[in-house]
């Protein structure tokens, strides 16, 4: 594939287009004007992931914006996947921001609905929700492919974007979940990342549905992996994080170890096992490592899973 045939020409796109098993990571920007946090996280992950999600006010908590943090990650040698939620911006802001991000050299974008305001630190905020994630994907696709704004007006220079989306195989109604991904693919998604997978049998069942409608051939699917740092975290995710499916045996397995280093080691071992099992599933094009505030665990897990070295992309 030549440079002009790529949609955006990002590392991530090239790796996935080549059929190489991809590894993406995740960086949460800080809750202050501290410019060193993303730089430090980027140094930890550089060379161990192909690109890194930069979260957008994740869990509806105010942080440094994903555009600036994404730019910072790229300045530090780590390709960004800029997240964009429909919660905080209307269609004007979402188009303005993607043009700005494109000018700054950001090529991967992840289109999300966003966690509801009620979960975050400003529960009294007005939610925007002008578009939903499917509308957002389509809008960016039309900007890229047709050089048109959502209103239909032409633009002189179209942004080059590799468009991603998320899907939760553990959300309900389960029988609609693969069909919802199809809607996103029809809207223009190039790649998708799943919610954190802990229930592997259910994820396999969802992948069966995905393959049954041929979606694995139309969109690059990256399976979400979150190493569990301890039994407390496992319990918290099981009980309080929306859309999370953490089987009791996973909680029990971590809790059986001594609190601290032993639980962390078990969490990492579990992540490695899951990556190996999931990589065998037909249609899985890579993994998305979401080590929430535990970035230093990622290099070790990726290495133990046999995913190093990461390919150098021209």
């Amino acid at each position, binding site marked *: 594939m030549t440079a002009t045939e790529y949609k955006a020409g990002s590392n991530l796109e090239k790796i996935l287009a080549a059929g190489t098993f991809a590894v993406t990571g995740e960086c949460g920007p800080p809750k202050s004007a501290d410019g060193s946090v993303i730089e430090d996280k980027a140094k930890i992950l550089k060379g161990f992931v192909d690109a890194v999600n930069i979260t957008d006010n994740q869990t509806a908590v105010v942080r440094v914006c994903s555009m600036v943090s994404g730019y910072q990650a790229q300045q530090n040698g780590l390709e960004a996947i800029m997240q964009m939620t429909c919660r905080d911006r209307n269609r004007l802001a979402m188009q303005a921001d993607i043009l700005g991000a494109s000018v700054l050299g950001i090529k991967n974008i992840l289109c999300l609905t966003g966690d509801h305001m009620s979960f975050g630190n400003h529960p009294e905020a007005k939610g925007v929700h002008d578009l939903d994630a499917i509308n957002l994907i*389509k809008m960016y696709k039309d900007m890229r492919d047709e050089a048109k704004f959502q209103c239909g007006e032409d633009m002189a220079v179209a942004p080059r974007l590799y468009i991603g989306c998320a899907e939760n195989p553990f959300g309900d109604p389960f029988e609609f979940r693969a069909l919802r991904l199809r*809607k996103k693919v029809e809207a223009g998604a190039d790649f998708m990342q799943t919610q954190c997978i802990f229930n592997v049998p259910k994820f396999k069942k969802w992948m069966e549905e995905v393959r049954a409608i041929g979606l694995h051939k139309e969109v690059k699917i990256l399976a979400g992996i979150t190493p569990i740092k301890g039994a407390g975290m496992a319990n918290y995710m099981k009980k309080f994080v*929306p859309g999370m499916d953490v089987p009791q045996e996973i909680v029990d397995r971590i809790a059986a170890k001594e609190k601290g280093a032993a639980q962390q080691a078990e969490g990492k071992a579990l992540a490695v096992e899951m990556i190996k099992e999931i990589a065998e599933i037909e249609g899985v094009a890579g993994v998305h490592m979401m080590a929430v505030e535990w970035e230093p665990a990622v290099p070790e897990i990726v290495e133990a899973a046999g995913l190093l070295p990461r390919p150098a992309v021209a």
Partner: protein
Amino acid sequence: MITADRKPLDEIIALVGDNKKVLVAGCDTCVAICLTGGEKEAEILASELRIKAEQDGRAVEVEHTAAIRQCEWEYLDMIAGKVEAADVVVSMACGIGIQSMAEKFAPKIVVPAVNTNMLGMPQEHAVWLERCGACGECVIGETAGICPVVRCSKSLMNGPCGGSHDGKCEVTTPEKEDIDCAWALIWERLKSQGREEMMYINRPPKNWSKSSSGGPRKMVREEAKPV
């Protein structure tokens, strides 16, 4: 119907301020049906205001009345005498009624005794649920008669978000009660109608200019205007 919740007594007293002659005005339409602002509730509030004033040693005269509908000029004419005699009107109507009262009797001070909260329906006795966002472009013909604009916490137009679990929304009400996931309801009802393929359609961005985002709305029915 339009539903409303009564404000706390202290807030109403603060709104009344130093005014001596107070008229509590109920409305016998929507807010009476939701047991918040009808004549009976106006009488109760008037009593509460009198008792509190006496306890606090303030000399205040409190009357009460009710209009059949505070949102229509003709019905306001029927209580004009009582309104003119008061220093302040404490209206228990919805936001429309309160504003009609304030406009009709300007510069009379009119203050709200209720918080208007939704276009809802009584699900069971004394329980109301939001059903319509008055968005100006109804889509429920495609969503099995269930409104995603107000019944989905994120007003999604293309199916449930990842936070839908066991038919429930990821959001809970401020009273910490479960909310049904609108899109789970839509999916089930469309299936029961044999029309689930309606969920497969990608709906374009909604035209919010027909909602309050387009500025205050005005409706004119030319054919109904007096000749």
